C-alpha cells in the first residue's frame, strides 16, 4: 500500500503542496485530480523521490520509500522526453537496466513492449525520427519495461490522438491486471472514471475529496433531476421543491439540481398530476460534476 501522509512542499515563497494525504491499496488504480497548479505533479514527484517533501511521510507497504524501492517504481512524466539519437530498442532496454534489469531479461522485456505497442518497424531507428505518437509509445514502454510495482503517470493522455489514447488505456488495464498499482492524473475525466477505482481531488495543495466513485457520489449533497417534457407545469412543480435549482434544458427535458434528501416519489406524484411525464430520472453526479464542486471551479 502506498501511504502519503500530510506532505508539504514549498519552493521559496510558493507553497505547492500544503497538506495532502491519501492511501492507495496495492493493485488499485488511483486518480489524482485537481486544476492546474493544485500540486498534482509536485505530489507525484515527491512519491518518486524527485523532490523531497518539507514535511510529512510516504511509505510503500509500511516502509519508508527509499532509492532502492524507487527502482521498482515507474514514471511517465507530463513533459515527455527521450534521447533522440538513441535507437528505440536500445532506449527501452536502457531504462530497463536503470531499473535493475539484466540480460537476457532486459532484451526480452524490450522486445515484448516493442511488439505490444506495435513498434517493430521502428525498433532499430533513432527515436527522434519517430512520429510524436510513436515517441509517446516508446516513452510508455520506457516507464513500464521493468513491470513496476507502482506506476505513476502524470497526464498520460495529454496530446494523444484517440487511437493512441485507446492503446494507452488498454496498456494500463493490462498492467493493472498484472498487479501494477497505477497513479494517474488527468484532465480527461471520462478516461479516469472508466479506469480508476479510487480518487483524490486536490486544490491549492490540499485534499478536497477522496474515495471510490460511489463514496464520492454519496458525499455529494445534490443530484440532478431530469424530467420530460420541459413544460411550464413541470417547471412549476420543480420550482416549488425546496432548494431546487434549474440547470437548463436538454433534448426537451429540464434539469434541476436537488438535494440528496429530496423525496423523489412525492415529487414524481406531483409531476404526474401536473402533466403527462415521459421521463423522470435522478442522475448520479459524474466525476466531472464532483470535481467541479470539490475544486470550486
Amino acid at each position, binding site marked *: 500500500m502506498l501511504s502519503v501522509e500530510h506532505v508539504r512542499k514549498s519552493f521559496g515563497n510558493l507553497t505547492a503542496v500544503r497538506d495532502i494525504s491519501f492511501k492507495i491499496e496495492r493493485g488499485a488504480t488511483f486518480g489524482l485530480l485537481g486544476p492546474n497548479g493544485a500540486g498534482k505533479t509536485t505530489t507525484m514527484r515527491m512519491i518518486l523521490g524527485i523532490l523531497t517533501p518539507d514535511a510529512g511521510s510516504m511509505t510503500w507497504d509500511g516502509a519508508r520509500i527509499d532509492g532502492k524501492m524507487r527502482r521498482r517504481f515507474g514514471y511517465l512524466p507530463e513533459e515527455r522526453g527521450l534521447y533522440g539519437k538513441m535507437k528505440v530498442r536500445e532506449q527501452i532496454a536502457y531504462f530497463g537496466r*536503470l531499473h535493475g534489469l539484466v540480460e537476457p531479461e532486459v532484451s526480452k522485456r524490450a522486445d515484448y513492449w516493442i511488439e505490444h505497442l506495435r513498434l517493430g518497424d521502428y525498433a532499430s531507428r533513432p527515436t527522434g525520427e519517430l512520429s510524436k505518437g510513436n515517441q509517446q509509445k516508446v516513452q510508455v514502454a520506457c516507464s513500464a519495461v521493468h513491470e513496476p510495482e507502482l506506476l505513476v503517470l502524470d497526464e498520460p493522455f495529454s496530446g494523444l490522438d484517440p487511437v493512441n489514447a485507446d492503446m494507452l488505456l488498454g496498456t494500463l488495464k493490462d498492467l493493472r491486471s498484472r498487479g501494477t498499482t497505477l497513479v494517474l492524473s488527468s484532465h480527461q475525466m471520462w478516461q479516469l472514471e472508466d479506469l480508476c477505482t479510487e480518487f483524490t481531488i486536490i486544490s491549492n495543495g490540499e485534499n478536497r475529496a477522496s474515495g471510490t466513485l460511489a463514496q464520492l457520489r454519496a458525499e455529494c449533497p445534490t443530484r440532478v433531476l431530469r424530467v420530460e417534457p420541459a413544460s411550464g407545469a413541470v417547471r412549476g412543480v420543480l420550482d416549488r421543491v425546496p432548494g431546487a435549482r434549474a440547470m437548463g434544458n436538454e433534448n426537451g427535458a429540464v434539469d434541476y439540481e436537488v438535494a440528496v434528501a429530496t423525496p423523489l416519489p412525492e415529487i414524481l406524484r406531483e409531476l404526474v398530476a401536473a402533466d403527462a411525464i415521459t421521463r423522470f430520472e435522478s442522475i448520479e453526479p459524474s466525476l466531472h460534476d464532483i470535481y467541479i464542486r470539490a475544486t470550486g471551479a
Partner: protein
Amino acid sequence: MNAFITVLSAEIMRRIRSRPFLLGVALGIFAIALMIKAPALLGGALTHASDAIVLGGPPALTSRGAELLKKDFEIEATTTKTDAPTMQYLDSHNKAGALVVLGAANRRLTVTVYARNLSFVNRKTLKTDLMPLNLAMSTSASVAAIDSSMNIPIVVQGVDTKFTSEQASDAAQAIAYTLLFFLYISILINSQLVMTSVAEEKTSRIAELLIASVNPTSLLAGKIAAAAVLAVIQMASWLVVGYFLSGGTSAPAHGSDVQSASAGFGAITANISQLDIFAFIAYFVLGFLQLSTLFAAFASMINRTEDLGSVQMPLVMPVVAALFIAIYALGFPNSPLVVATSFIPIISPFTMFARIAVSVVPLWQIAVSLLINIAAVYFIAIAAGKIYRVGMMLYGRPPKLSQMWATLRG
C-alpha cells in the same frame, strides 16, 4: 545492474560514437601529425629559402669566409661574381636564398647581401661569423687563431634545478609546454562535453524520467566518469599517434626551433620522469573532476542549450587564467604567484603540474596541493550534486543567487 555502471557504459557507448568525440580525436591526430611532419615536409624549402647562400668575391676572401659561415649557412657555391644576381641565378644554385658578396676596403671586410627575401638578412649572424676574417684583415693575425680565441667555452649549471644540461632543460620545457596544452584542452573539452550532455538531458525533458529512475548522484557520477574514460581514450590516441609519427626520436637533430617542436613527442620518453607522469595523470583527474562537476551543475540551471555560452563563461575564465599562470610557471616555477596558485583548486592542476615538470618541487608542497585538490573535488561534488538535483527539475526563470545559496545549505 548497478545504476552507476549502467549510466557509465551507456554514456561511453553513446558518446564514443558521437560526431563531436570522433571529430575531436581526428582533429587532434591531424593537428599532431601536422605539428610533427610539417617541419620535415617544409624543411627543405625552409632551408633553401633561409640558410642556403652563394658566396661571391675574390677567391682569397670567399674561401676563408666559407670556412667561417658554414656552421650557420649552407654554401651552395663560391663565385667571383660581385654584381646583383637575377632570381634565375639564385634558382640555378639550388634555390639559394642570397648571394653574399665579400670585399675589402681600407683593410676592412665589406659585405653586400643580394637576398631573395629581405627578411633573410640576418646581420647579427653574418657579422659574428665573419668577425675573425675582418679582424685578420686589420691585424694581420691568422683567421684560425682569431676564430679560436673568440670561442670562449661557457659552462652553464643550474641552481636548484632537476636538469643536468641546458638541452635537458629545454627539452623538459618543450615537453611541459606540450603536456600543459594537452591538459588544458582535454580538461576543458571533456568538461564541456559533460556540460552539453547535462544540458541536452534537461532541455529534452528526459531528465525527469532519468531522475525518477536513478539517483541523481549516480547519474552525475556516471556521466563524469564516462567523460573521463573518453578523455583518456582521446588523449591516449593523440599521444600514441604522436609517438609513432615522431619515430621515437629523442632529441632535436639540428637545434632549430621548428625541429624541436617535432621532436617533443619522441623526447617525452627520453626526458620525462615518473613523477611527471604521475603528476600529469593525478592533476588531469583532479582538474577534470572539479571542472566537469561544476560544468554539470551550471548546465543543470539552464533552460535552453543556447544559454550554455553564458553559463560557461565564468567557469572558463579561471581555467584560461590558470593556463597563463602555468605558462609563466614554466619560466619562473618558484615565483610567489606561481607557488601560491599551485595550492588553489581549479588553478593548481595546471600550475603545480608546470612546476613539477620544470623544477624540483618540495614533496610536502605536492602532497598539500594534492590533498587540497582531493578535498576540493569532494566539496565541489557535494555542492554541485545539490545544485544538479534541484537544477534539473527547475524550469522557467533561472534561480536567484539567494535560492542557490539556500539549495547549497539545504
